[in-house]
């Protein structure tokens, strides 16, 4: 069901920033809140506490099954940002201490900030950063990946589905190369669940991060998969009551965990249907824009592309003006985490777009609730705004 106020005023195509919750997810969460529900602390040693703990553990089993993992390999966190921080800082500290011995970490410039910032933090502590080269589509080439992992490389991090462009890295291949070179690979799968089939065990990935609110679950909850065989260890970021086997202290948010799992189950069950739906929407939107507007450029991959994202750069317009003018359309430029800052997307710049083009880019992202009407309405607004702004520009006629 679509929210009334949004339907009336705004077209929402920013599902990669945050997606609405389904009725059944909200219901499952609400049942854990009030005095008549499962509100007790799962750490408490009494009936209601154990009932809460049981819910949490059942959720863990169900989530593990969805991602090809064992329940004891799941650590609940406050989101993908925490999962990414815990994986990278935690593994770095556990295996390499201070990094004073010149350990290296390999990462692409197109990663999410919550991967890049911990890497930069490690660099401040003495780690060496190796940037993984990407091609013009943003894909990491397996050969250059293998070449970059040297003797000193302890860690690498790759995003499964890029949050800005939707390109899909070949994680099984990268994981194999990393394993051969005894490099601990972390995979940021925040945008991936419900967008493709993923399987932690079969892919032999040591660490993988998840975020509920990207697949229709609540904000403020996520998970880190930590492989058990061969084991991967991390030093905790937060200490205290020793929840999550001491790896992540803090009272478990039962309603959040329950909501995450319900949403994950829906996302996985409806995967095939959604992919087809998004493919159709994506093609329709791209065709409309391309037909109406000269000089719009697609940011993405031909083959390895998740259909829930369409990222387009518009030549000859100012990014801020374009975003402001699209007042009735919720899309993003770059990731939501960087939207407030005036800087153009570093991901698109890494793909070779200049500052002005990177800034004048829009990421459309689709969800279960997206409709053909949304797409047509969005296309209409974008075409109108781009034409209007180009007509205002003293430079456009020269270029056209």
């Amino acid at each position, binding site marked *: 069901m679509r929210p009334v106020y949004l339907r009336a005023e705004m077209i929402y195509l920013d599902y990669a920033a945050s997606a609405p919750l389904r009725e059944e997810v909200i219901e499952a969460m609400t049942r854990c809140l009030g005095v008549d529900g499962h509100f007790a602390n799962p750490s408490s040693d009494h009936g209601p506490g154990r009932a809460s703990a049981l819910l949490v553990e059942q959720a863990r089993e169900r989530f593990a099954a969805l991602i090809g993992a064992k329940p004891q390999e799941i650590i609940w966190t406050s989101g993908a940002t925490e999962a990414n921080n815990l994986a990278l800082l935690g593994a770095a500290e556990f295996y390499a201490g201070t990094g004073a011995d010149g350990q290296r970490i390999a990462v692409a410039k197109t990663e999410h900030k919550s991967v890049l910032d911990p890497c930069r933090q490690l660099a401040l502590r003495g780690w060496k950063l190796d940037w993984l080269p990407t091609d013009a589509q943003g894909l990491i080439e397996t050969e250059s990946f293998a070449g970059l992992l040297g003797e000193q490389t302890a860690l690498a991090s790759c995003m499964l589905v890029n949050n800005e462009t939707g390109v899909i890295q070949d994680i099984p291949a990268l994981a194999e190369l990393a394993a051969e070179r005894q490099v601990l690979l972390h995979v940021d799968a925040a945008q991936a669940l419900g967008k493709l089939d993923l399987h932690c065990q079969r892919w032999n990935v040591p660490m993988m991060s998840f975020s509920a609110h990207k697949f229709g679950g609540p904000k403020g909850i996520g998970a880190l998969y930590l492989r058990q065989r061969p084991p991967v260890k991390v030093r905790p970021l937060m200490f205290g009551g020793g929840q999550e086997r001491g790896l992540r202290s803090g009272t478990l948010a039962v309603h959040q965990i329950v909501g995450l799992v319900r949403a994950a189950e829906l996302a996985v069950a409806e995967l095939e249907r959604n992919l087809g739906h998004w493919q159709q929407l994506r093609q329709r939107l791209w065709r409309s824009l391309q037909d109406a507007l000269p000089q719009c450029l697609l940011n993405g991959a031909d083959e390895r592309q998740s259909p829930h994202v369409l990222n387009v750069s518009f030549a*000859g*317009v*100012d990014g*801020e*003006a374009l975003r*402001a*003018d699209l007042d009735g359309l919720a899309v993003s430029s770059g990731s939501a985490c960087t939207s407030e800052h*005036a800087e153009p997307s570093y991901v698109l710049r890494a793909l070779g777009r200049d*500052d*002005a083009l990177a*800034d004048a880019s829009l990421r459309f992202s689709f969800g279960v609730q997206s409709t053909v009407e949304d797409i047509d309405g969005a296309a209409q607004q974008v075409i109108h705004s781009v034409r209007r*702004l180009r*007509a*205002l*520009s*003293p*430079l*456009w*006629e*020269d270029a056209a």
Partner: protein
Amino acid sequence: MNRYPDKVWRLFRNPRRAGGFAADLPVRQGRATTPAGHAVIEMQLLVSSDGRIEDAQFRALGCPYLIATGAWLCAHVIGRRSESVQELESRLLVEQLELPALKRYCAVMAVEALSTALAKEAAVAGAQTQHATQTGSEDE
């Protein structure tokens, strides 16, 4: 809820005197550009023989503040004598449009484009093909 001051928002969404004059008119034209060239504003003036600004148009590539600044400045200078606007300070635009500190350069650019235009001889610009398309009631 809006991120822009009301006045800026109105002028950005519905800028009067945007797009430039017809190519066959004798306009005085001036441009200002940011160092990186990402933002450009152009002022076009029709000045009568006795030095009165009879009409003005602008074109801009830039943020909503820059577009609003161009629109505001056109409305402001029409009917004034060119000597009287030569002394115009960007501070006035900053105040009138409530430009935040980071966007004050928009006012500086607009004033620079205006003074460049005033300093120039009137010319018939061959390159221009577009006619002024924006009409409507004054809201200044």
